[in-house]
């Protein structure tokens, strides 16, 4: 039988959300293999960087990195290097050292043997030492990191790499709203209104780029209403309230994912880090204003 060009689309529950991979323009049998490899890459990132899995690099670091250098997978190290860079560029707004606060707020599970003491969060710049050669050390025992604000984007990037290396020429990978697309044709993305997920803010075309969004949480199993933000402001250690939701377009999904947190926390002050990473953004402030960087390319949804 002659090889035909195929379109396949698959979805699996990974990274605590739904990961959707849509591939076209590839031989049919090759497409299945490529999608399998892409999901495997996402699962590997989950295995390495989950706060919840006891054997992950993150859990190992949180247990033992304060007593000596710990070697991690090169992928984990790469994400931590970007996290450190993002931390510096955002004047501390992006901080993976926020884990103890997330535990106190019940957003991350607590270890019953090691209760979290109030006020134990140490800013990343003082807490984490990246020693080179994929080795990481924490400066004190109370340090805990969570890569939840950046690893999902990185997983999307790894999935895209896997698809490309399997000969796929056009695809989109969407991990619960953090997505990246490549190929000749642009893909249109609907961006939900973070205040009310049954409405849209705008449509955006994405091609050979990444787009990440963060907003309030919402659960269509329970209701159409959005609840609190899951983004915590490191300085006040409380959920952000200045911004309802943000969407960032960048060259990689890891950068876009992390920058959504910076915009959520720093609002308009995110201009400098956005500029540095050559990213553009749109956000909805608490007063209902929709603000966008001057280079933002979004299309208004025409309702008629």
């Amino acid at each position, binding site marked *: 039988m002659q090889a035909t060009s195929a379109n396949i689309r698959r979805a699996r529950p990974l990274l605590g959300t739904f990961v959707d991979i849509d591939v076209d323009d590839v031989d049919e049998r090759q497409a299945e293999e490529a999608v399998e490899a892409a999901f495997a890459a996402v699962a590997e990132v989950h295995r390495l960087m989950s706060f919840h899995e006891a054997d992950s690099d993150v859990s190992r670091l949180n247990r033992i990195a304060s007593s000596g250098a710990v070697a991690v997978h090169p992928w984990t190290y790469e994400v931590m290097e970007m996290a450190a860079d993002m931390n510096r560029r955002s004047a501390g707004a992006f901080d993976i050292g926020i884990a103890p606060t997330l535990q106190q707020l019940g957003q991350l599970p607590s270890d019953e043997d090691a209760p979290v003491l109030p006020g134990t969060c140490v800013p990343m710049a003082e807490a984490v030492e990246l020693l080179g050669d994929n080795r990481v050390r924490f400066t004190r025992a109370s340090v805990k990191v969570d890569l939840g604000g950046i690893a999902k984007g990185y997983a999307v990037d790894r999935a895209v790499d896997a698809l490309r290396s399997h000969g796929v020429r056009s695809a989109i990978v969407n991990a619960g709203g953090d997505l990246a697309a490549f190929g000749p044709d642009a893909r*249109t993305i*609907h961006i*939900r209104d973070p205040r009310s*997920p*049954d*409405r849209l803010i705008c449509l955006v075309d994405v091609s050979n780029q990444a787009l990440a*969004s963060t907003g309030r949480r919402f659960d269509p199993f329970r209701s159409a209403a959005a609840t609190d933000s899951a983004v915590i402001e490191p300085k006040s250690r409380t959920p952000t309230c200045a911004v309802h939701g943000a969407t960032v377009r960048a060259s990689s999904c890891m950068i876009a994912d992390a920058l959504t947190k910076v915009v959520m926390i720093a609002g308009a002050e995110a201009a*400098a880090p956005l500029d540095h990473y050559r990213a553009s953004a749109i956000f909805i402030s608490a007063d209902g204003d929709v603000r966008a*960087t001057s280079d933002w390319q979004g299309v208004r*949804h025409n309702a008629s």
Partner: protein
Amino acid sequence: MTEWLKWTAPAAVVMSVAAPAYATQYMSVGEAQKSAFPSATGFAEVQAGRVWKAQAGERVMGYFYYDHVVGKHLLIDYAVAVDADGRVRKVEILNYRESYGGEVHDASWLQQFVGKSSQSALQMNSDIRNISGATLSSTHLTEGVKKVLAYHASHFR
């Protein structure tokens, strides 16, 4: 240097935009069975429309479960493939439908999806697009998979 501008979409237009019914068909039951157990020679129905035994000749390769998780505005059909030794081989989402018009609980609306293959794309009231925005959790689906595994452990092991 990046500047912020007030994004001036006309308020009337933005406010009237209701998100369409997002629905995606990924795979039919038959496709998911074949993809989970590529070397199976047959699938024997153990429980009508819900549970199948994957066989290679006489040998039992594992079991295939088809189940749903339903919420107020979301319905997900999913499949869990379990190895002969009881381990999860694969979890696939077959259909995803999100709607704010109340259709999720309407049997006739749901019926249009049954047995469709992923190749026969549905025409909804809008194109089926990618969505981005508020964080969507997969907790309910994870609980569904646990339920399936508990059922499997008590019936087939």
